[in-house]
């Protein structure tokens, strides 16, 4: 080897060594980087946490809502298993989305509108979101989908839980329903800065109360969500359900209502096909035994999202099925208000022997105010005036009492106010007096004639069926300020307090009760034909009510007191009066008068008060003196049912007995 060559070889060797050294340095760099990542993780746990977050996804388990029971423990709203089919759009793929949804729709027989909506949902869904195609499947539908799942990638069927209302329409109004939170509600929660709750609300299993008690008691009965850590892959698909950490949801506590399901259902059945409302209240405790509005709707339809077409149909129905008439329907009380006017007049010093001559009209301020009976009632006293619902008598009784005293009495009897019974969207109604007039009309002089309209329950007065029932109850119980209640027992419900005695004239109450006894239980009373014979008898020793057919000798007939009423929907013109008021049956339904009836019973031991309003239920007979428009016959059947069952006499259900297992945690959470 030459020197030059050796030099060159040594150059190569030096450089090869350098390259090897470079390789070693590079290797060292990678090893130290690997070690650094470990060390970093050792200190901060960053990667371990991210790996866990990566690997596990917190799946929310919606808690079962508190069960709503009727007063005897009958379940009115429950959380039950729900079979549903859903798709994971990401797994289906954009191209297959429509064919897949169509195929599922075909299996389940879903319409084009549903397909289009689900398609829209699926396209808007985020990565790993699920889109429920149909919930509330029957077992056969569920099976039909299940067997075809292998040919439907990205489609799943599972059992979830869902709110159900076993009584369908019967409790739709007082209980309401739950639904998925809408975007507005979610936005509101986001605006409050509660991101976690917003995420929770977006979960497809979560429902919140939207109407009735469900909405009112939302916070109390929703329960506490649980969660389950499931192992997921990068696509968000669950690869392992088990093994992950789990926190069981805490079911919401149950609530016992005052309503008796039997009576409620009876009332709903009785009002079927009518636009009507019925409230039955315990005059001692204020328990609402019946709070029914007809027509009802099926709350189960709402839980999984009602179709817009179906909602439109319900919403535009002229019988207003979605409308909770018992508390949001404000009607002129008509002659039922004479109960109030009568008490006010006696309080105002109306003499015992006060009598008026009724020629069929009363002239006041140069204007004729009419009685419903064109020929008049002749000379009538307090008792007969109520019994025959003579307007002319009550015009003058009203004048005797004065506007303010009538208004005060009306408020004491429970009109013109809202009740915190757990039903949202209640209206207060109107009890007109000078203060109210000023707030409405300002400086305009108070019309002196207003008192006459008020005295017979027309004019500006507006009352709800619930208020009318309270009025009847407070009269029937001798003037005690009984407060209505819908929830007997539940979170945050105070125990019943003894009702305060109202500063009402006891004499007035006595005379009114006497008069309305005549209405319902004496021949010639405006409701006698309906209410005169309930076909119920009672044991004078125990007050036990039995059916007339099974009554042993010695029992007495059950009697009730009541008052009819008609709320004018249209203004009757002088010309019309001249030619004879048109019979209601000849008028379009929408223009017919509302028919009202309030009553209480049994007279021997008053326990229940009832108020019925039948929208546009007025009939000609009422004008002709029968008084038995649509409302009284319903009252008769409902009262008969209530008196016979006598729910207040039976021991009510207790949460502690219905849900013994829930007592501990429920207390702990409070």
């Amino acid at each position: 080897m030459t020197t030059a060559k050796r030099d060159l070889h040594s150059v190569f060797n030096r450089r090869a060594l350098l390259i090897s050294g470079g390789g070693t340095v590079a290797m060292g760099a990678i090893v130290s980087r690997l070690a650094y990542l470990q060390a970093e993780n050792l200190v901060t746990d960053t990667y371990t946490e991210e790996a866990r977050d990566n690997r596990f996804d917190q799946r929310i388990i919606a808690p079962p809502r508190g069960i709503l029971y009727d007063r005897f423990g009958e379940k009115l709203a429950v959380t039950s298993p729900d079979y549903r089919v859903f798709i994971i759009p990401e797994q289906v793929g954009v191209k297959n989305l429509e064919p897949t949804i169509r195929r599922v729709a075909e299996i389940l027989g879903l319409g084009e509108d549903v397909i289009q909506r689900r398609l829209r949902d699926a396209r808007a869904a985020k990565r790993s979101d699920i889109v429920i195609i149909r919930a509330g499947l029957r077992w056969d539908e569920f099976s039909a989908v299940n067997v075809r799942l292998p040919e439907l990638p990205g489609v799943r069927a599972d059992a979830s839980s869902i709110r159900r209302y076993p009584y369908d329409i019967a409790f739709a109004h007082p209980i309401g329903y739950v639904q998925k939170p809408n975007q507005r509600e979610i936005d509101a929660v986001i605006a409050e800065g509660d991101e976690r709750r917003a995420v929770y609300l977006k979960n497809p299993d979560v429902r919140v109360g939207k109407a009735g008690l469900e909405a009112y008691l939302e916070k109390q009965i929703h329960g506490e969500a649980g969660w389950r850590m499931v192992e997921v892959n990068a696509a968000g698909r669950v690869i392992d359900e088990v093994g992950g950490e789990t926190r069981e949801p805490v079911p919401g506590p149950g609530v016992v209502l005052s309503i008796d399901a039997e009576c409620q259902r009876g009332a709903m059945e009785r009002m079927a096909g009518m636009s009507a409302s019925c409230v039955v209240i315990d005059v001692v405790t204020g328990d609402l035994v019946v709070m029914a509005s007809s027509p009802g709707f099926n709350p189960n339809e709402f839980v999984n999202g009602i179709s817009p077409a179906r909602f439109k149909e319900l919403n535009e129905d002229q019988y207003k099925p979605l409308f909770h008439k018992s508390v949001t329907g404000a009607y002129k009380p008509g002659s039922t208000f004479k109960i109030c006017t009568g008490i006010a007049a006696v309080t105002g010093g109306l003499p015992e022997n006060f009598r008026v001559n009724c020629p069929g009209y009363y002239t006041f301020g140069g204007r004729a105010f009419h009685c419903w009976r064109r020929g008049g009632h002749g000379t009538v006293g307090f008792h007969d005036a109520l019994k025959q619902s003579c307007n002319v008598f009550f015009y003058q009784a009203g004048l005797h009492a004065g506007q303010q005293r009538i208004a005060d009495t009306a408020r004491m009897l429970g009109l013109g106010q809202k009740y915190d019974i757990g039903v949202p969207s209640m209206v207060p109604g109107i009890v007109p007096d000078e203060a109210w007039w000023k707030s409405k009309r300002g400086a305009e002089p108070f019309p002196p004639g207003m008192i006459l309209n008020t005295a017979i329950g027309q004019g500006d007065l507006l009352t709800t069926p619930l208020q009318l029932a309270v009025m009847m109850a407070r009269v029937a119980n001798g003037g005690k300020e009984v407060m209505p209640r819908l929830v007997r027992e539940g979170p945050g419900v105070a125990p019943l307090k003894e009702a305060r005695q109202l500063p009402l004239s006891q004499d007035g109450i006595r005379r009114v009760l006497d008069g309305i006894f005549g209405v319902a239980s004496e021949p010639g009373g405006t409701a006698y034909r309906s209410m005169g014979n309930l076909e119920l008898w009672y044991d004078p020793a125990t007050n036990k009510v039995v059916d007339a057919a099974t009554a042993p000798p010695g029992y007495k007939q059950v009697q009730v007191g009541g008052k009819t009423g008609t709320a004018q929907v249209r203004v009757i013109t002088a010309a019309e009066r001249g030619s004879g008021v048109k019979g209601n049956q000849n008028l379009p339904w929408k223009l017919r008068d509302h028919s009202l009836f309030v009553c209480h019973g049994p007279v021997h031991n008053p326990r229940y008060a009832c108020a019925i309003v039948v929208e546009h239920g007025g009939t000609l007979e009422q004008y002709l003196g029968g008084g038995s428009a649509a409302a009284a016959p319903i009252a008769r059947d409902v009262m008969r049912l209530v008196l016979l069952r006598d729910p207040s006499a039976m021991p009510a259900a207790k949460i502690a007995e219905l849900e013994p297992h829930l007592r501990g945690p429920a207390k702990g959470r409070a």
Partner: protein
Amino acid sequence: MSISSSLQGRPRGTSEKLSRLNWAIITLLCALAVTGVIMHFSVAEGSWAGRPLSHGGRFAVVLAIVIGVALLDARIWMAAAYPVYFGALALLVGVELFGETRMGATRWLSLGPVSLQPSEIMKIGIVLALARYYHNIDPRNAGSLLWSIPPLLMIAAPVALVMHQPDLGTSMLIAAAGVGIMFLAGLRWRYIVPAGIAAVGGAIAAYFFVLQQYQRDRINTFLNPEADPLGTGYHVAQSKIAIGSAGLFGKGYLQGTQSQGDFLPEKHTDFIFTMIGEEFGLIGAVAVLGLYFALFILTMAVSARARTMFGRLAAAGIALTLALYVFINTSMVIGLVPVVGIPLPLISFGGTAMLTLMTGYAIVLSIDLHRDQSSTRGFLW
């Protein structure tokens, strides 16, 4: 046999040749390939079907061919150097003209039923051609600028073509291997330093004027991976999570939560090192790196032992290519360099890279076996 026996080297029998093969290198190659099989078994979530068997089978076949070829005279590689290089260059031009576009890059050339990537052939071609070039010139001229012009052109032509495909990773690999051989051949430092400075300047200029947007994105993502965690940065972010959360001993074979949960993309190809890191921890990753490092050192030793300049430069060039593969891949998955799409040789799934590297090792083994041949005189020309 007739050719070799007519040469000055001692005549040898096949069995003797076999026994003189560099079995240490072969063992390391096998160890790496077996690592690959083990990892593909895990990628397949514990199933032999598909990749694990196919990877192992392919390696076995290729290894047999490699050993057979290694027994042939090393000088045939020198003879083949320019034809391979220019053939590959012609194919690269062919790709440019008739190439098949897959996944946004034109790298494949269809020749009947076979589709091949000429850029892979070029990885070997450049090493052989430069080794041949420096073998033939007067060693004293190797360091000079003038004599460095042909090698520079030989590097620049394929690099430009491959970069245009576009395949940044492979063009970098070719360029680095080429420049490495020039360095080993004795290019003077006074040229290397300014050239290095110019290269950095050129890289910056290239970033703005030559690179495609997706390549720029990769670099940007590399510099700031958190900016786009679900885009290009996702791979690296997931890879770092997997490795970082593994600990010293890893999460256990088949237990890698990130890789088994599909969080890790490309785990059977470019990101397989992450899986090793996750399932076998720091120890496992360092062990695999150790295998590569041993292979690299043994290959450099082959280079140092070779008597001919061709043998030295070719073996060193292949060692360099291996080191670059491993360095670029591993530093890519741990976020040291941008994601460029370079597989981990012999472990990542994919026939092309295995074939390229094993061809390289056929040459290395052959060079080692015939290291005593100091001259080419009398051979073929």
